[in-house]
């Protein structure tokens, strides 16, 4: 499964406006280059055969235990 190729120029214009992050003209070639690399990485990920239960996403939200003061409240 490979997604349709994306256009880094379109991605810069559309996403930078959505995120509120203007990209100066002088920086555009560098950003463009790294978006191409990101696209290549995504193509590698798209080729991995994932099952629907491959879902243990890494970020962990761990609740703090009550402190002594909280427990008294």
């Amino acid at each position, binding site marked *: 499964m490979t997604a349709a190729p994306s256009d880094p120029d379109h*991605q*810069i214009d559309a*996403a*930078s406006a959505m*995120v*509120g*992050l203007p*990209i*100066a003209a002088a*920086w555009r070639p*560098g*950003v463009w*280059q*790294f*978006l191409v*690399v*990101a696209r*290549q*990485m*995504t193509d*590698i*990920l*798209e*080729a*991995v055969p*994932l099952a629907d239960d*491959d*879902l*243990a*996403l*890494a*970020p*962990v939200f*761990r609740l*703090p235990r009550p402190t002594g003061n909280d427990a008294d409240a």
Partner: protein
Amino acid sequence: MLDLATDPLGPVISAGDIARAVLDGRVSARAVAEATLARIAQLNPMLNAFTDITADRALREADAIDSALARGTVVGPLAGVPVAVKNLVDVAGLPTRAGSRINRDLPPATTDATLLRRLNRAGAVLVGALNMGEFAYDFTGENAHDGPCRNPHDPGRMSGGSSSGCGVATAAGLAPISLGSDTNGSLRVPASLCGVFSLKPTYGRLSRAGTFPFVDSLDHLGPFARSARDLALAYDAMQGPDPADHACAGDAPEPALPDLARGIAGLRIGCPTGWIARQAGGEARAASDRAAAGMADAGAVLRDIDLDGAEAGRAAAYLITNSESAAFHLDRLRSRSNEFDPDTRDRFLAGALLPAAWIARAQRVRRWWLDQALAVFRDVDLLVLPATPCPAPVLGARTLTLDGTDLPLRPSLGILAQPFSCIGLPVVTVPVFAPGSLPLGVQIVAPPWCEARALQAASVLCDAGLAAAHPPPPTPTVPSPGNGG
């Protein structure tokens, strides 16, 4: 007392030997600190490893060690050992610059980071904070604000990053132990290019409290040293739970030093072929082969293995890093992007523009890759592979040729390291190179929470003389014109 005129506590002495000399009363901690500060004053103008030299603090801490010993108070196993920390580690009284210009506006840290406090508690003496790539997004050791951190084996070449100052300071004898961080390879790339040892422990083993983050879900801290024994010494001093770091596992310390000499007879060593082998040049593969052969000589059993899921693991690491770090810095990118290092700014900006679906898939593949790796560890006890594709590139280089393809150097120099930090596995990097040649490192990768096993293998290679932090030339020469930086 030792005669410092002959410099018996010279630049290549081990941390363990320094501590023994101090504890035995053969030299004072103050004399060690003064000798180290003198070496820093001599070499740092060329190497650019230190951004802050904490001379007053070092002498104060050294005097406290000497006073404690004079009173008969028990002092820890790092008594009088000079240490230095990557400048993303909080040092009371210094702004935690994290290699950036922007962070210099922060107020000075009011307390030390947890791991620095633990090193101090073990008797170590802080001599300074170390240069690094901006916000840790770097494999080169170049920094637009503080200048390049130069490789002591050839100052015209890269030190590796982002813990560049750590690799350089420990290689050059300016800090027998240094504390760095690793998100994608920043403990391993500088260790490889500078020819020293490092330990990236299991994700969650060592507290990161009091350090400036890069990618919270991937960030690790760990030590650099000049031997496997010194690595274990520093690692043991820093272990322990810390509720101040939400990712710290909270396990009781599992000291590695007591069983360091256990040996590796009978262990099964996996030598990856396929994609991993293709990312390494001939010198890197030869170094890894020498390390594996040394393990076989010690009674381990070698077997080739397929670890091609590493390619997808590396891709997942790339995208998670790019996106999570950009989100972390988004306000700074919006308001102060012209103050970033140009070489990190463009990558951060790109990371803020990635679709969420790409990142969610990267997280799922990360878990898939962990399952692949754990399956491999049912058949082998350790993995051995190169730490970097090649020795140190010249400063200013922009491309790296891997597997016949020219790639941008900055994101590619850590290609062999990224897959393993992505899934939090412990890795010891050992230097395997001939004296007088450019260093190269070899990764010894262990299953989760098995740092001690990787250190035992590293110790075997040290004892066999195969892994050694051969000292750089005594006086680094001025880099030749055209070598950049």
